[in-house]
């Protein structure tokens, strides 16, 4: 095999030196699911949706560098089951009620549920007590729906250079916190024009006053599955 090639499910895939498996696969038009990954930002590797087998060992495709001769399993029933379980875990960890959520139809978590045929969350619901922060003039944060992907953290730090968000606490107590005297978004440097305002893959951060604007049937994942998208990490504008 060529020294700039590896295989995904037995078919050769070229890569440029320094590319991660996910990037190489994407260039080759092969879909590897992901939630906390967004090509604009430094990879995070926490959601584990992009878990693949590299020569039999599980790795996160968004952080693992592609190397010549690697043999990857990406689409196997086992891996799909793993991804389904991950989505189920994220669902029970928060309060995800799609019927009342304006992100429904444009939500990547939901779309991955569809992709991996999640029929129920399986695990016992945790129903955590989380708040809604509507103190900001233009943007609301509903912590019930936060999946700790840290995209807003990275966007605010690396693109907006404001570092409005951070993660505090550990284990199940891990949660998004806001850099302001009161801990409220309204008192932070956050602005609706920030990249961080448009990067949330779920319905946790959304613009005030304009829910459900996209008709059912025209929403991002209504007719086309998340895997069908060339670059599904470009988050559709909320609503």
């Amino acid at each position, binding site marked *: 095999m060529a020294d700039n090639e590896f295989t995904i499910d037995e078919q050769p895939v070229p890569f440029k030196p320094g590319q991660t498996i996910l990037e190489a696969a994407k260039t080759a038009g092969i879909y590897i699911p992901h939630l906390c990954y967004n090509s604009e930002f430094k990879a995070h590797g926490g959601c584990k949706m992009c878990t693949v087998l590299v020569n039999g060992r599980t790795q996160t495709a968004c952080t693992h560098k592609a190397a010549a001769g690697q043999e990857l399993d990406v689409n196997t029933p086992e891996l799909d089951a793993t991804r389904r379980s991950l989505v189920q*875990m994220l669902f*029970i*960890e928060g309060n995800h009620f799609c019927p009342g959520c304006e992100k429904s139809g444009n939500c990547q978590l939901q779309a991955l549920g569809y992709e991996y045929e999640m029929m129920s969350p399986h695990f*016992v619901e945790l129903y955590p007590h989380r708040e809604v922060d509507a103190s900001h003039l233009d943007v609301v944060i509903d912590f019930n729906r936060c999946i700790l992907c840290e995209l807003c953290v990275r966007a605010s730090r690396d693109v907006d250079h404001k570092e*409005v968000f*951070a*993660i505090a606490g550990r*284990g199940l*107590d891990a949660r998004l*916190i806001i850099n302001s005297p009161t801990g409220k978004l309204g008192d932070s440097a956050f602005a609706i024009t920030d990249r961080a305002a448009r990067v949330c893959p779920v319905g946790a951060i959304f613009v005030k006053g304009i829910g459900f604007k996209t008709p059912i049937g025209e929403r991002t994942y209504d007719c086309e599955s998340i895997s069908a998208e060339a670059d599904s990490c470009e988050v559709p504008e909320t609503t």
Partner: protein
Amino acid sequence: MREIQEESDWISPEIEREVAEGLGIPVTRVQSVVQFYSFLYDKPPGRYRILFSDNITDRMLGSSALLEHMLKRLKLRRGQTSPDGAVSVDLTSCTGMCDQGPAILVNNFAVTRLTPRRIDEICELIRIGAPVAEWSSDFFRVDDNIRRSETLLTHLEPGVALDAAIACGRQGMLDEIKRSKLRGRGGAGFPTGTKLEGARNAPGAEKYIVCNADEGEPGTFKDRVLLNSYAVRVLEGMAIAGFAVGSTKGFVYLRGEYRHLLDKLQAEIELMREERRLGTAIRGCAGFDFDIEIHMGAGGYICGEGTALVESLEGKPGRPRVRPPSMVQVGYLGKPTIVDNVETLAHISEIAVEGGASFAKRGTHTSTGTKLISISGDCERPGVYEYRFGVTVSRVLEDCGARAVTAVQIGGASGVCLTPDEFSRRIAFEDVSTAGAFMIFGPDRDLFDAAHNFAHFFAHESCGFCTPCRVGTAIQRNIMDKIAEGRGSRYEVNDLMRLADFMKKNSHCGLGETAGNAVRDTLNKFRPAFERRLHARDFVPAIDLETALEPARRITGRDDADAHLVTEA
């Protein structure tokens, strides 16, 4: 942070803001640190902060009853601070006093060998408000309990190892270490020589040697002993490692639970500086510069993980980094960094003195040298034992006076559970690999309790970075609770097995990968201990329905037959 708290007991929002301004960083960074570590408080705890070590071995020694006893005496609920702000009582993960438990931490200082009487004395001292400093020193006595020693747990004349190292030169020292085939004692068993060489060859002038003294694995306490009585071996070992790698700066990352060792170690380092065993031109050898700084941990098992430890060292929450790159390439402050276990570094000084070849003669072909084992649980002589690699489990049990053993948990909560038919196995990287924890369960012990305890341990210690571990450990804990309450069924047992496998395969770091081990092992080897607790039905509601009706019953004042629900017969 820790220093600030030592002064002001807790870290108030004001302090958080001051620190942030002082360092010119967002307050969120400060908060994320404060809220990550168990021993940093963003709410005021009691002036007396009492934390009960909650390892299974403490429980086996009756810690639960003692906790209840103290709570009753102080009229407190667990986790709650007394109205007058005087005292708070809570649980914490294993404090590494398993050989002399049950143990507690009082304002971060360990009090060992608890008895109801001792609890009463403490409550009295609290009542009269006696400063902890004035409490009887006997409370705080921490014994080494060295029961068996070979080459490591022996006196080493200060400077001898350093001189030997200087004698054979940087390259020579590195060769000796490689020749010794020394492997990391933290559990992973990575060849130390290779690691050092990697760091030495890594580009850049600044390099760091970090001594991992965050001995957080439940059931291990051998590093505590090394640092208490053989600090010379450890610290000189660090200097020698620095010598071989070309590093001039070392850190000891000392776990918060070992606060009592801090002053002693500081003094030792001071002494070494005076005797030019640290500092510039060590032992007069020009260019051999090395100094050591102690960094106190603040409570976080995860920080035992090399990359998490370095994050913590940099003053961040201890979340494991994404690898590659390895620490050896990009570590502390992005510079090449060696993170080695206390015991590993101690061995380096040993190798310096006697040379790699003779070191390699001990132990087995692939596991050279000796290993310290921390023995606790049901035996006559708990403590630290030094063995050559290859010793059988049964031999160890014999030596410590353990009889009619039900099982041994080797390697702590993340380790393996061995039953009598496996006691012929050997302690070695190629067989039973361990960082040294050796918890013994006697004839009348119920291994479910151990698994249950470990499940809580992991849920509490998970850093929350990755989904499988963050949510998985919580689900595992909840299921174990349900089974413990007698409301579990085959349904949950199946889920537990799947969960253990899931976490092992998909977690980000060792914590999550091993979080299901104990539960899985006990399920495989002590299934009846689970089944005894299972409900006869093949499905039991996730909740206790009677409890779920209580609030509505209370507010409506109803108690009629229809206001109750029984589990179906």
